């Protein structure tokens, strides 16, 4: 325990130091506060300090007695409101995923995919509360958190008095919001990771197999690599930077999805015996488009909310996020048009998501100009990835692997290329004079998280298949999962429904 050593932390402020012993906290608190400010651009600090002085002067005089130690009540209130609002936006992304995935699937499987998207929010909530949050953010080793199951503390945040942090979630002690706000914000992220898988394995996986896998993903897989990066684990200590989760959320979900596809095989009829690739058009581009726009909106909670503080950085982060998405759309449209002959709407929707996934890691540390470059490459990359996966006969009905895996990796590497100390102090990429150091750490993180997630998801899919079976029968697949598994159609057209029934009763 060396409280005076220079703290190592990545730029979103995740404190990567080991848990503090109760006796050392008072001294530690000062260091933490100074360090948190140090990582922000000077103009942001000045603006925030100005706003604070006005707000606290009007409302709360109590916190002013010690300018450094206890958090200002008004700032805690603002931070909490922002983190919760951003969390609500991220929650709404589940609606976006539900619409994109059901729109890209056939109508005969619509109820099935919608049910999965709905249920996974509940499963993720329960699992993340039970084990996920503790394994990810609880105090433990460099590899796994081991405290705070079922959100059992202790935890005295927000730190509005002078006792300093006392609790088992010291990796989140840097943010000035109540524990419930920290938990809620991280919970909606976990739900997002679990949802990524459902689209990739759609139209052929057994319902209960998906539910079991999603539960295991949130309970044990997502939190472990998350701990390495956000929970004060070993990758964080190496300086690996992933602000809002290109790797933590998206590539982990993407790897799990890819392994699911490999275990399942393609949908019947997708690839001919001669190797030909057949189109299986989605049943509603209207739903998919609405879903894409909802996800785009939700991302303004996902990225700017990851400050976990109400500060002026959120404006810049919202703009890098918006520009990358716009560039992703533009590039996907142009690339699909040139490469395939038409500006395919399904590719354009994927293009926006690709830009958003790609900017997620670097949104706080790159310039707005560079965010456009990151998005442009993401948009071209996602179209090429869809074509390539199809050639490899990896059948992904919604392009989840192309969006979340390929661009999760690209976005993580982009930190090592574009991170700009003029935007935010602390991380410097290759193109801004940082040499290969940051890029090397990013490559290492991508490789190690990838290897771990591939191995563990293979094991989890294997267990799932052994316990429950994995794929529906060919007859069930032809009939559609809505009739065979759910017993309910999304668009019933039978003569025993609607007006015919009423006519008969009359």
């Amino acid at each position, binding site marked *: 325990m060396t409280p005076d050593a220079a703290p190592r932390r990545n730029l979103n402020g995740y404190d990567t130091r080991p848990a503090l012993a109760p006796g050392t906290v008072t001294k530690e608190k000062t260091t933490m506060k100074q360090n948190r400010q140090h990582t922000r651009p000077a103009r942001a600090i000045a603006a925030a300090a100005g706003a604070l002085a006005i707000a606290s002067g009007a409302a709360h005089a109590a916190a002013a007695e010690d300018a450094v130690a206890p958090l200002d009540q008004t700032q805690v209130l603002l931070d909490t409101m922002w983190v919760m609002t951003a969390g609500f936006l991220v929650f709404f992304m589940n609606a976006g995923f539900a619409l994109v995935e059901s729109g890209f699937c056939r109508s005969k499987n619509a109820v099935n995919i919608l049910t999965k998207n709905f249920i996974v929010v509940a499963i993720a909530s329960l699992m993340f509360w039970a084990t996920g949050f503790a394994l990810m953010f609880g105090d433990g080793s460099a590899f796994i958190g081991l405290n705070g199951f079922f959100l059992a503390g202790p935890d005295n945040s927000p730190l509005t008095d002078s006792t300093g942090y006392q609790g088992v979630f010291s990796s989140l002690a840097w943010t000035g919001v109540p524990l419930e706000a920290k938990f809620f914000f991280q919970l909606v992220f976990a739900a997002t990771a679990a949802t990524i898988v459902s689209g990739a394995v759609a139209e052929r996986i057994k319902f209960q197999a998906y539910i079991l896998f999603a539960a295991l993903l949130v309970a044990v897989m997502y939190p472990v690599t998350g701990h390495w990066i956000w929970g004060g684990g070993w990758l964080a200590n190496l300086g690996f930077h992933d602000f809002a989760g290109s790797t933590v959320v998206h590539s982990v979900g993407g790897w799990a999805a890819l392994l699911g596809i490999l275990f399942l095989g393609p949908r019947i009829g997708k690839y001919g015996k001669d190797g030909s*690739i*057949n*189109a*299986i*058009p*989605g049943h509603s581009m209207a739903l998919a488009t609405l879903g894409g726009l909802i996800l785009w909106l939700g991302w303004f909670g996902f990225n700017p909310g990851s400050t976990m503080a109400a500060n002026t950085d959120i404006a810049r982060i919202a703009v890098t996020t918006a520009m990358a998405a716009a560039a992703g759309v533009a590039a996907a449209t142009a690339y*699909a048009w040139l*490469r*395939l*002959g*038409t500006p*395919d709407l*399904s*590719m354009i929707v994927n293009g926006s998501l690709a830009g958003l996934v790609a900017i997620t890691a670097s949104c706080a540390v790159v310039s707005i100009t560079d965010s456009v470059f990151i998005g442009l490459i993401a948009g071209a990359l996602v179209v090429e990835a*869809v*074509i390539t996966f*199809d050639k490899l006969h990896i059948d992904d009905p919604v*392009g989840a692997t192309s969006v979340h895996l390929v661009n999760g990796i690209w976005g993580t590497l982009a930190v090592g290329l574009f991170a700009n100390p003029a935007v935010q102090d602390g991380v410097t990429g290759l193109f801004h004079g940082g040499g290969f150091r940051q890029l090397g750490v990013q490559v290492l993180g991508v490789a190690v998280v990838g290897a771990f997630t591939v191995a563990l998801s293979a094991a989890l899919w294997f267990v799932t298949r052994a316990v429950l079976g994995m794929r529906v029968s060919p007859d069930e697949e032809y009939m559609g999962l809505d009739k065979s598994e759910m017993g309910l159609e999304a668009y019933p057209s039978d003569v025993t429904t609607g007006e015919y029934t009423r006519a008969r009763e009359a």
Partner: protein
Amino acid sequence: MKKVEAIIKPFKLEEVKEALSAVGIQGITVTEVKGFGRQKGHKELYRGAEYVVEFLPKVKLEIVIPDDKLEGVVNAIVKAASTGRIGDGKLFVSIVDDAIRIRTGESGNLAIE
């Protein structure tokens, strides 16, 4: 009595209906159908893979008429449904044995006039 079945382009339905009204036809049954003739289908593209839409949407009209109205009805449909391009559809005429109006029990020409 004769039955005329006409398969036409969907966007021509309104014109055909008006032309039939003009020659005194009071009842038409319409069905949305799919099929192809010499027009064949066309190709579409989804996520880089091509697929052929072989069965094109058409509208089928069924009209049962007294023998003396046949010529007027056929001319009205052909004139109204024609664009001069491939895919305009076809018209089939057959003999109908009888017709009965369910409400009154009337049969023959009484049931269709």
